[in-house]
């Protein structure tokens, strides 16, 4: 099953390759990866989406924890979390398709960030499912280019409350 693992690591050279090396050495694929700074500039946050059975993931999580430069490992999929991904899509804009393109962009609350006489570049942000659905809708119009950021995710509450997900209500996503 799919897992989203969030890693708090030292902000040093060579850390990413240690993390990635753990996956490659065991022949596991990383579906998506994103790295960025945190509030504390001495640390970085790595978000990894991967797939595997329970035993493999237990082993990966332990191995990640064992890396000296890894400060904390959280398997976000164990509890409630919010995830986002940003995607830039370049589509062909034939005159007859423009209205349809606008309609889809409107429905998904995407944004046109650039246009040329023959193309629109559209930005969409959302969870993986939403992005996937959007791309599928646009596909008949002719995708020219597609760039997806890695997925990022955040736990819905602090670690202590995280185990208590049943009591919490689903928060309606703000516009």
């Amino acid at each position, binding site marked *: 099953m799919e897992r989203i693992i969030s890693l708090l*690591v*030292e902000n040093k050279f*060579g850390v990413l*390759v*240690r993390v990635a*090396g753990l996956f490659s*050495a065991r022949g596991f694929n990383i579906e998506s990866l994103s790295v960025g700074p945190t509030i504390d500039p001495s640390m970085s946050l790595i978000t990894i989406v991967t797939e595997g059975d329970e*035993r493999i993931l*237990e*082993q990966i999580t*332990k*191995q990640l*924890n*064992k*890396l*000296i*430069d*890894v*400060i*904390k490992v959280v398997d976000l999929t164990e509890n409630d979390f919010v995830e986002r991904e940003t995607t830039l899509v370049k589509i062909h804009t034939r005159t007859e398709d423009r209205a349809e393109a606008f309609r889809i962009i409107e429905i998904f609350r995407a944004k046109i960030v650039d246009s040329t006489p023959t193309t629109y570049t559209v930005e969409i942000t959302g969870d993986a499912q939403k992005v996937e659905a959007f791309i599928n809708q646009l596909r008949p119009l002719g995708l020219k280019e597609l760039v997806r950021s890695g997925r990022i995710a955040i736990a819905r509450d602090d670690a202590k409350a995280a185990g208590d997900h049943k009591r919490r209500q689903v928060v309606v996503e703000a516009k």
Partner: protein
Amino acid sequence: MKLTGAEIFVESLKREGVKTVFGLPGGVVLKIFDVLYGEKDLDFVLVRHEQAAIHMAEAYARATGKVGVALVTSGPGATNTVTGLVNANLDSCPIVVFTGQVLTSLIGNDAFQEADIVGISRSCTKHNYLVKHVNELAQTIKEAFYIAGSGRPGPVLVDIPKDVSMAMAEFTYPDKVYIRGYNPTYEGNKWQIKQAAEAILKAERPVLYVGGGVINSDGSGELQSLAELLNIPVTMTLMGLGAFPGTHPLSLGMLGMHGAHATNLAVHNCDLLIAVGSRFDDRVTGKINEFVPHAKIIHVDVDPTSIRKNIHVDIPIVGDARAVLRDLLAQVTAMVGGKRREGKTPWLTQIATWESERPLTYKADAKVIKPQFVIDMIYRRTRGEAIITSDVGQHQMWTAQFYKFAKPRTWLNSGGLGTMGYGFPAALGAQRAFPDQLVVCITGDGSFQMNLQELSTAMAYDLPVKVAIINNGYHGMVRQWQQLFYDGHYSASRIECGPDYVKLAEAYGAVGLRATEPHEVDDLLDEAFAVRKPVLMDFQVDPYENCYPMVPAGGAIHQMVYEDPQPEAGGRPSTPKDTQKESISLA
């Protein structure tokens, strides 16, 4: 006080209490060697090949319990350390390896003798560092020693560019080290320990299965107290030999692929397996889903990744073997009111019956030297008290079977990686640590030839190790597998044109001795052990002797093969058919 990086390096080693450094100089580390020149507190052992330096440092660490240190140059000097690093990593041995590196401005430019050793060694070290600024040097060395020696010990590599060793910086050596991403757990969880104690008291057929972790944590005393308190038999992994006295009535010796009949049956039939500092290696478990079918498993390990890696565990305890054994002993003692369980339990009687059924033995011969006979004679002569190193192959397994180690840290061999060429440099490293102890390297003609250049080092530093070459003219274990599982196709396992070992020893100024018949063995050992010089003993043994019992690879450990299959009509030795296919695919 401002010092150069090279001076900081040497000062830092002294602060860590380092006495001996093994290695070989080269261009980018000359500044450091210049500081070592005339240095009285650090003793440098110049090797003939960098691989040997790492094995020496490892054996030094293993025999003393301190962190071993090696220093080599960049490029080929660094890449030659890789086998040693992997070996130390798999056998959880604390060493710090310092490599020189080209100028920071040249890194990545394919400079002369440049190799990305930090990249190369990333997956085979516990941690590694590239020191990019002289200001970080002391702190890095402090961290390297701490990481190597704590938790599950392992190798740490520190790469020092030439300009870093030449630059000046203020020197202060940190007293303490704190690494926020690294906090090994030493104390076992109290609740889990209580659960384990209850399970131990309830068990009718318990077995303690202990590994190198007990030796690394110096937990032998606690282990023995626990075993004796409750009369629990103890089996040891290859790395664990010496953790429990081999002649103790509760000792079952080594288990696994070449474990004794009674030992493997005891493990297979136990109802509680207490694994301490061992990691369920495939050479131990055989076919994993038929391993200990009737048993609950307690697993104590300092490394959480070892637990549930290969097998489901009922009571996992993360912690230092010694600390957990101590708590477990206290808990069990409190529960039984401090009373020792006396007399033979039905379980011990059963194990004794298995032992008498098929004792671990060999057939001595009047004409041909049996390899086991040589090892047996070395054992009798030293009563299990010598420091023994070995290489890899049949002689290693025979040593594990027939040499009954009395004490921990006296058995140095390459377990996890199976590095041929380990034994001889290891013996030199141990001898350097203990100049007055008897150190014997039991090796094969295949293995010895992989690092024999160190005879020169042995002479240069007056390291009087005794090397017993079990010379069968073959890569014996390979030949055994080819005989048993590959239709006797002895492909590339015959070692032709081996040297005359007596002349070889003499060429280096060492002593060379040879025995070709069994009656010569005793006198030869007398002579070898009496002289205070390195001695090469060439024991020309039966080339066709095989190591039994043997669990064919992929088989369950209670299904052992005890002797050579009887020759078929065609005269060729037959193969155990039922396991043959599987062995090949799983080997």
